[in-house]
């Protein structure tokens, strides 16, 4: 009798191990991989257009999903501009003119500093976990890796700029290798492709992300993660307007 019970227990455990996790759990794991509780990162963004290219380097501090600060460190003309997110408020500071500008939520979908990387992206205004419903819709290979194909639909009242999102998350390491963004009419607006998986701090993550807008072939923005530290301690006070003016 006990033997039958134990074998049943084992089979149950084994079977549960085989069941795929639900979509939300997958997304959660993928998100935690790139975020951590807090992070300090140095990144380079290359804006590519048919006739020109521009490179902007910046430093980014993040704490949870409520606080985020980005400081532009190059080129010289742009240096010193900072962008702050505090809960639901977005601010930008321009040292040349000494002005603190509040960014309206309507500007979230617009490109940051003239790129295809939106204001929403840099300030991580929306969270892929909290603001969306998740559904596992299949399995595909991206760049030779097996991935879960997950559809994200925004929840009611979420401050989200997209109508829907499809993510390809690798099964073995939960990397978000490919993402497609759609508007409310279901039209593809942007494609994101992650590559160059390297070891950063305590984990392996993709360090190169390409943002390709659908309506402008020949345009794209490449964001490269140069350096990152995860789970550093940053006080909430760091994310303030006063600090925006001082931070280096």
């Amino acid at each position: 009798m006990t033997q039958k019970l134990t074998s049943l227990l084992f089979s149950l455990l084994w079977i549960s191990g085989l069941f795929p996790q639900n979509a939300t759990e997958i997304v959660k794991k993928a998100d935690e991989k790139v975020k951590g509780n807090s992070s300090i990162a140095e990144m380079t963004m290359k804006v590519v257009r048919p006739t020109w290219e521009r490179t902007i380097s910046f430093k980014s501090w993040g704490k949870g999903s409520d606080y985020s600060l980005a400081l532009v460190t190059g080129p010289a003309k742009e240096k010193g501009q900072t962008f702050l997110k505090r809960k639901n408020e977005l601010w930008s500071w321009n040292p040349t003119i000494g002005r603190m500008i509040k960014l309206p939520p309507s500007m979230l979908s617009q490109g940051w500093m003239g790129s295809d990387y939106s204001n929403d992206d840099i300030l991580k205004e929306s969270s892929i976990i909290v603001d969306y419903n998740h559904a596992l819709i299949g399995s595909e290979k991206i760049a030779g890796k097996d991935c879960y194909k997950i559809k994200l639909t925004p929840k009611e009242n979420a401050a989200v700029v997209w109508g829907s999102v499809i993510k390809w998350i690798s099964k073995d390491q939960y990397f978000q290798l490919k993402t497609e963004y759609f508007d409310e009419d279901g039209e593809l607006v942007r494609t994101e492709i992650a590559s160059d998986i390297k070891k950063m701090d305590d984990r392996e993550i993709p360090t190169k992300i390409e943002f390709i807008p659908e309506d402008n072939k020949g345009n794209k923005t490449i964001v490269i993660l140069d350096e990152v530290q995860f789970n550093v301690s940053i006080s909430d006070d760091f994310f303030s307007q006063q600090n925006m003016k001082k931070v280096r």
Partner: protein
Amino acid sequence: MKFINLDLAWRNIWRNKRRTLITAASILFAVFFALIMRAYQLGVYKNMTDSVVQTYLGFIQIHAKDYWKEKTLDYLFEANNDFLRKVAFVKNISMTAPRFESFALASAGLKTKGTIVAGIDPFKENSMSGLSKKLIRYKMNDSVETELLKSGVPKDIIAAINESRVKSFTSQEDAEKKLTKFIGKENTVRFLKLILSKSKINHAYLTEHDNGVLVGDRLSDFLNLSVGDSLVLLGQGYHGASAAGVYPVRGIVKIPNPELDNQVLYMSVTQCQKLFSAPNMLTSLVVNLHDPEKLDETKSEMKRILDHGQYEVMTWREMDKELVQQIDSDNYSGLIMLWILYIIVGFGVFGTVLMMTTERKKEFGVMVALGMQKYKLGYVVFIELVILSFLGIISGIILSLPIIRYFVVNPIQLTGSMADMMNQYGIEPILPFAWQFDYFLAQSASVLVIISIAIIYPLLKVFNLDTMKSLRG
């Protein structure tokens, strides 16, 4: 043979002076009115063209290819030595002015507004459009009004000025003219000096590489700016660079077009290029010509010299299709008016010729009965009418010349709301008359055509003459 006919015709004409003079007079009036009307119309069109084209648009503009269609900072061109040298080759060019125009958010204090930033060469732009004359030297605001009240200017006068909303003046004469309109001549004479002394403001025009700006009057009101205040400009520059800067206000300008007055600010071209991170680049080069008639030839010449793939050369007709349509439609309606005039006058001429023919029926009958061949008679009548026509046309021209010349030199000055409307479009509010050879010829030719049509009747009458009937008649 010809001389006899000519002689006959001449004598016929002067045989009945009254008849001759009536016919000649009707032709004279036709020509006279046609010339005056056409002189007026052509003068007005030229004024419209000159005002808008010469002072702002320029007869020709050079841009980077596709700029005019797209009008974004992606379409700029470099004004390097090679380019300038090529342009200098074209002889008909009287002047060129560089321009760098784009958009930016302007902010002062807590107010922000989207504005047009116009980078100009201050001297060249001034010689084109007289921008420095538009600088405001006297401006009335609340504190000025309080001072004036304290100095004894009656309340109702201040109220009247307030109501008129005309509170900026570019010069003493401008102030005098405007104040007279709103508070009457007497009050103006009494208070002008006082008003001027209290409302005087600093003003300065831009220097060549000035880092200051000139702000439109209405725009300065909205942003609450005075000369010396700082203005913040924020926007996007060339190739995605950020455009940001702080600029002192050097002066306030009154732009006639109210929409522009509310939106535009001027900067030196070098500062503008710096703001938008586009060193040595321009959005357009404005070109004025010595001889505007050679517009299309000059354009072709410029296109030949400059590289097709990189630049586009446009005439004002291509750039401001609205103005062209306006002038064309006015022109056509003018021509219609002219043709109505011709028809009316044509009937007048026809009437007198008809009268003349019927009157001389007996005379013609006698001539034919005596043996004159009908065609010869017809020929003499024809010559008579031709001589009459020339008499009429030449005297019409001579009569119209002094009147036209007077209005060419002293054009009618428009006032009131009509003048304001014209000023808004940047057109000088005058009605000048044109002084050109071409329309004199055209009108005379048209009148001749009408006369020829009118002559057909008497000629027909002569050829179909029933000798017996006319003798008895």
